């Protein structure tokens, strides 16, 4: 992705901007009004994609960390760092929009039920990952140790997730049991939103990767 030219990147930005514009249009004007919750339900079309992209970005960071440990090429470390930072931002958005949703539907801003707890823990893990990187000065060791932490952190996610499966939860299990509580029209809008957010993630990733590469160049030039 770093080797893409300016034109490629601008194209990606344009495409994602257009799809997000369409998504906004769909969410507010096309998606049907939900029976019990009314218009507030529309937050759902942004809450789910934000959380989805957050998890995706952190997964990418996990895989990049593994690759870095195996191959020690700095481009994997740059990808791990960039995707972790972006993932943290999206998870934050997911948690906050989810909190608004919770307030509107269950009357509380927060509750310590499994899925929310998992998201909070995941947030803490990757916030710690970024803090760790900043606290280590030795180059080489910093990237290695951070990569190990990213692996440990992501392995913790399925374990937390399992806790959801075994415990009663208040969180709407929309996709439980093979069916879904959404009408086909809603599902289509949701999927489009997920796609548009993913494109947006790729665009931001390209920007962030460029920054990581530039930072490395500066380091090299300074200490030659």
């Amino acid at each position, binding site marked *: 992705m770093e080797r893409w030219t300016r034109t490629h990147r601008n194209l990606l930005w344009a495409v994602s901007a257009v799809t997000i514009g369409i998504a906004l249009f769909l969410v507010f004007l096309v998606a049907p009004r939900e029976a019990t919750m009314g218009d507030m339900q529309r937050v759902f079309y942004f809450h789910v994609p934000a959380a989805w992209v957050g998890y995706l970005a952190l997964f990418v960071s996990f895989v990049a960390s593994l690759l870095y440990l195996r191959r020690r090429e700095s481009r994997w470390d740059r990808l791990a760092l960039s995707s972790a930072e972006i993932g943290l931002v999206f998870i934050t958005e997911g948690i906050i929009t989810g909190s608004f949703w919770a307030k509107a539907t269950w009357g509380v801003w927060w509750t310590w039920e499994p899925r929310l707890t998992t998201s909070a823990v995941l947030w803490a893990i990757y916030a710690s990952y970024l803090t760790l990187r900043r606290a280590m000065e030795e180059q080489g060791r910093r990237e290695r140790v951070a*990569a*190990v932490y990213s692996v440990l952190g992501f392995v913790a996610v399925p374990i937390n997730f399992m806790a959801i499966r*075994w415990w009663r939860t208040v969180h709407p299990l929309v996709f439980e049991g093979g069916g879904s509580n959404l009408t086909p029209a809603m599902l289509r809008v949701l999927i489009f939103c997920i796609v548009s957010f993913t494109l947006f993630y790729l665009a931001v990733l390209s920007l962030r990767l460029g920054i990581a590469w530039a930072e490395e160049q500066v380091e090299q030039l300074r200490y030659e």
Partner: protein
Amino acid sequence: MSLARQVWTLVLKDLSLEKRSREMLSSMFIFALLVVLVFSFSFDLRVEVMSGVAPGVLWVAIAFAGMLGLARSFVLERDQGCLDGLLLCPVDRSLLYLGKLVSNLLFISLTELVVVPLCFALFNLTFHWLLLPIVLLGTIGFSAVGTIVSAMTVHARAREVMLPILLFPLVLPVLIAAVKLTGGVLDGQPWREIQNWMQLLVGFDVIFLVVSYLAFEYVIEE
């Protein structure tokens, strides 16, 4: 030397170091005691049924005291230059992990020998044999992750702060499961209601033991 002997030699090294200075164990004991006392005191002022908070207090005390021990265990090595010495040993790097893990387990368990009875006394709890495996498994999970994370923070700035910051999010499932299980057993809940948490605890222990064992060499290499 067989694997077991190698690991045991490493553990003996830590034990003899501690026997000479005694500073780590005593600080862990005192700290855990203080945590339990402070919590039981402050809750007593507000909470009607003390046994409700007992599991939480117990595991918080274990976690905090444990963190103290974990922090010390690698810092000592680094400050005295022992870490380089260890790395020069003709020992598989991952065995260093096992050695550290066992010593950490021993130290935390010794602390628990003091803390658990204290909690039982202050909160008027009744003993149940299931608590032994629960505490053991919880400690194993905590130490498995704690050992590798303490190795990671040894080279970081502000390492006393970094260790809890890095460790807590990872170790949270263990603490939650341990507290749920302890509470369930003390309340007399039927086993099938809480057995899921036991599965989670065991699963966590196994997964993190394996992952930490494999990842340790990357953390400790020069």
